[in-house]
């Protein structure tokens, strides 16, 4: 586990209740209005899950937040009362996948060196980078993967490496784009264990795109249902049982919403996720424990 002194916060020295706001956010690509009227508010230490149909603009929202595609509206990073702005937040991003083929000669260390160091990678990677990479990897239980080729990692291992990479330097906002799609159960548990620890120790505000409603019901403090605009936004049970979500996700969502009243984890065969729930419940600093009943 990383020591707190490792914590290189970019904008705020000490978190006294900061929040990330999207105000009237919109994205237009060509003639297509992909996103419009997005107003979103996420406290630090809070995990907001974004669900919605494919092509509904979830990934585009992230790309716009990263500045990769132009957007309307504003991304604000302010004090909780909205009075004081902290400046430009540092955004960490964990992509869905990397462009890798089987022969790709790129090791985990290469990835870190290219991202952190100014020295061109082909001239070798210094000891300092190696140590820094190892420290970051240890935050995601992945330090033993340092010398492995990326192409030889399992999905779960690769996602933990990418998560670790997103943590140097420590971001204010962490964007996770379907981070555990295709990862096995144990891998998912490991991933969310790290995420929960991050929330607890560093007060990062986390946005998570996911298609797995049961997983989302367990880990999220808030769920946003996005299809070109925000159709539902609130506590997990609220959103998962809302008519539009049930319709969009069909019967699955209906069942998930019925079963998901989250504390009943004993019903679930998967005790890993129950463990996560425990940790993340603890980690939630904004007083919005998702185990409680929705108003």
């Amino acid at each position, binding site marked *: 586990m990383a020591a707190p002194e490792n914590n290189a916060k970019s904008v705020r020295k000490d978190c006294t209740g900061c929040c990330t706001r999207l105000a009237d956010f919109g994205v237009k690509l060509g003639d297509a209005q992909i996103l419009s009227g997005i107003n979103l508010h996420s406290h630090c230490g809070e995990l907001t899950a974004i669900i919605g149909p494919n092509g509904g603009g979830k990934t585009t929202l992230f790309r716009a937040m990263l500045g990769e595609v132009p957007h309307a509206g504003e991304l604000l990073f302010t004090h909780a009362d909205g009075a004081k702005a902290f400046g430009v937040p540092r955004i960490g991003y964990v992509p869905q996948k990397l462009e890798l083929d089987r022969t790709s000669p*790129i090791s985990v260390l*290469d990835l870190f060196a290219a991202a952190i160091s100014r020295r*061109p990678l*082909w001239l070798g990677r210094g000891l300092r980078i190696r140590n820094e990479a190892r420290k970051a990897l240890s935050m995601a239980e992945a330090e033993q993967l340092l010398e492995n080729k990326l192409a030889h990692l399992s999905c779960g291992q690769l996602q933990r490496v990418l998560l670790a990479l997103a943590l140097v330097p420590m971001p204010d906002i962490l964007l996770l784009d379907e981070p555990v799609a295709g990862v096995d159960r144990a891998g998912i548990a490991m991933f969310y264990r790290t995420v929960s620890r991050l929330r607890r120790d560093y007060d990062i505000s986390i946005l998570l795109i996911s298609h797995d409603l049961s997983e989302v019901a367990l880990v999220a403090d808030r769920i946003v249902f996005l299809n070109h605009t925000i159709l539902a936004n609130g506590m997990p049970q609220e959103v998962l049982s809302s008519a539009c979500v049930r319709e969009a996700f069909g019967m699955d969502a209906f069942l998930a919403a019925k079963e998901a009243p989250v504390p009943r984890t004993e019903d679930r065969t998967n005790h890993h996720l129950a463990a996560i729930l425990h940790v993340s419940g603890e980690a939630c600093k904004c007083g919005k424990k998702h185990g409680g009943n929705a108003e």
Partner: protein
Amino acid sequence: MSYWYELLNQLPLDFLQFDFMKNALLSVILVTPLFALLGCMVINNQLTFFSDAIGHSALTGIAIGTLCGLTDPLWAMALFACVLTLVVCLLRQYSSASTDTIVGLVMAFAVALGVVILSRGGGFIKYSRYLIGDILTITPGEIFRLCVLLALVLLLWLTLYNQLFLASMNRSLARSRGINVWPVELVFSMAVALTVTLSIQWVGLLVINSMLILPAAAARNMARNAVQYTWFAVLFGLLSGLAGLVSSYYWDTAAGATIVLYAMACYLVSLILRRS
């Protein structure tokens, strides 16, 4: 250059008795590492088809050059390659079609245009030297041009390599680390286009892409990390370049194609030795 000639005169190698072989040797030593470096990144970026297209559309550059009445169509070629690169990069950024489709379209157009212009009045045959290439005719002035090119690519590799590397893996990830992906990719594509264009009359249009890709592909089979990848590619490039040049002297064959055969041999050996 005279130092270089002096140096080579010390060597007891009979193929080096001619100045044109000395020039060719120097240019091979310059060109093959240059190609290997760029080739690594071309493969990382899945741009092998793009570099091939640039090679083919050099024909169009020549055609435009001759239309404008230039005796040395080099600058017309370079300019055309840059324009083409810009078009491809813009389409790649703003169009929803896949890169391969875009490159295929642009290349088909460029090559057709080039062949139509050059074949007017049945004069195509005099341009066939660009198809095969002849490194033995290279002059010291042209070698100097290659030196400048190598220096520029090295400068690019010293400043932008890491950014290019990340962008080739995931553009959003690169963006999240503050990299302006599009300009970086454009600069790289321009470097590839210029290198291919400036070398085409020595290497030959038909095989130039293989010379770019093969050393890097062989290195991919051997390397365990990105550092080894680069240096293996340079090593394979140099080895096949030297072996190819010497063999072409004794066999009286086209140097570019002979070099590519050696590079292919490197690739096959690497495939066999491949560490899992």
